[in-house]
């Protein structure tokens, strides 16, 4: 079902799943994504809710933008679950971490599981846009709307 892995023609076609336990951060990220031109945005308040969405075979998901430290199922567990999933294993995964003492360990763990990109909080919209466009293989010179 998933279209992930291919090069995307248009941002409007991409379905992105945002996973974050902080409602305020979630709303900011969603607003950024809309300003970049995303039309299909799904929200999950933790890894558990994200897995539930991914288990629906009719739900298209091309990219996951997930926080790392979350209750219930954290970002690391979610990434592992995605990479081991029969149909979702090649979904693009962008991890969001906090800048703290264990950041390097977390990034190393994520790299082992073939994370596509990571971004450290706090970040500017422009950085988020660059990372997303690079992961999706979209034209970097697409019209900028934030940053």
């Amino acid at each position, binding site marked *: 079902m998933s279209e992930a892995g291919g090069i995307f023609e248009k941002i409007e076609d991409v379905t992105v799943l945002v996973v974050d*336990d*902080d409602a*305020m*951060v979630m709303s*900011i*990220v969603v*607003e*950024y994504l809309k*300003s970049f031109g995303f039309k299909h945005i799904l929200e999950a308040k933790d890894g558990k809710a994200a897995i539930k969405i991914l288990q629906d075979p009719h739900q298209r998901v091309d990219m996951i933008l997930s926080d790392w*430290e*979350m*209750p*219930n199922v*954290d970002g690391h567990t979610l990434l592992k679950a995605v990479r081991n999933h029969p149909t979702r294993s090649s979904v693009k995964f962008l991890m969001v971490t*906090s*800048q*703290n*003492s*264990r950041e390097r360990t977390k990034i190393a763990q994520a790299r082992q599981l073939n994370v596509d990109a990571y971004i*450290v*909080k*706090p*970040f*500017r*919209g422009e950085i988020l846009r660059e990372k997303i466009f690079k992961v999706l293989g979209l034209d970097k010179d697409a019209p900028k*709307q*934030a*940053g």
Partner: protein
Amino acid sequence: MSSNNQQATALKVEERDEKLEAQAPVENRRILVVEDEPEIAKSYESILSGGADNVIPMRRSSRSQAPAEPVQNNVQGFEVVVVHQAIKALETVKQAVADGKPFAMGFFDVLLGPGMDGIELVRQIHEFDPNMFAVFVTAYNDRNVDSIRKLLGESMSDKWDYLNKPFSEGEILQKARNTVALWNLRNEKQAQDTALAEANRRLHIGERMASVAAVARGVGHEFGNILTQIIGQAELGRMGNEQRMKQALDTILKATETASAILERFKDLAKGSESVSKKKMIWAHSPLIEALELMGHQIKTTDIKIVRVKSERVQIMASHSSLVQVFVNIIINSIHAMGGPGQIDFSLFKDGDFVEYHIRDYGPGIPEELLGKVTQAFFTTKGDKGTGLGLSICKEIVEIEHRGQFTVKNHPMKGAEMVIRIPVMSEDD
């Protein structure tokens, strides 16, 4: 959760210990001679300085049957300073203390001519150098040992000795050797005690800072979120219309208020780690609530439910930041013990002149044979993750700082339970 930082702290403390050991005191071989007769003063000097060649033959001690033969001083000589007057002696000792080169001992002639005698001189010296040993030397039985003891005081009775004139060379030399050795032994002991106390103090600060570091990780995450929100609102607000911009600014202001509150709490916790803070009347529940807020991120991400069983509104005379430390340490221990999702119950109520806190987790509890040991310093079940001071610090804060009681037990149903009793009013206030 805090392994890296606790390890780092432990390493730092070890480094400091080595430094402390390296500062072993240098041997003090300085002797003061207070003698108004130049001839005798000179003979002291030659006996003690190690050059026995020019020793003027001394008369035999009246009490000794041993022949008064010159003694070869093979040992490295003493550093001898000779003065002839009491006033000069006072100045010399004062200067020596000021220079950090105190005398280990002095030989004091009792009769020093007009002004003060040797005993009064030593009494005055002990006012600013209580460690200096004194050996009184006199030819007259004008002072018996009891009158000297009375003059110098009970507490100084191990700081002086007595020698009759005429003395033998051997008597002087042996007295000097023994007394100087004793001064150095005591000095070394004192330096070790000081170093040990300092190492202990640093270790305790280190452990308190380790809990601060654990909290800091959560605070860092919260700040990351708040800043993401502030940056996002600013960027997105700038692109929107006037109404969107106004809404963005309102959200930013609210976010900065949250950040300031977190920072205030955190600063308070860190402050409590550095020094014993003052006690004042506080709401008994406020340090507990603050600890739960500080640990909020860890509690949320490990999926732990906090249940308030009972919370009475009582005021106590206590140090707010020290009690926050206690609760943060207990919560960290509980989170570690449960190792995942779980529950922490707390209750708070007044019991006579005490306020009682109960904090219970739903972990595996503490093996019966270890119950008495968990509040001992250096006890840890976390291997190299902990320094094993967490609960001992709690006990210290509760029992020594607040004269309360800290009890660790297992809950009859499941998990460990900490009971803290704090007097409503402390004795010293």
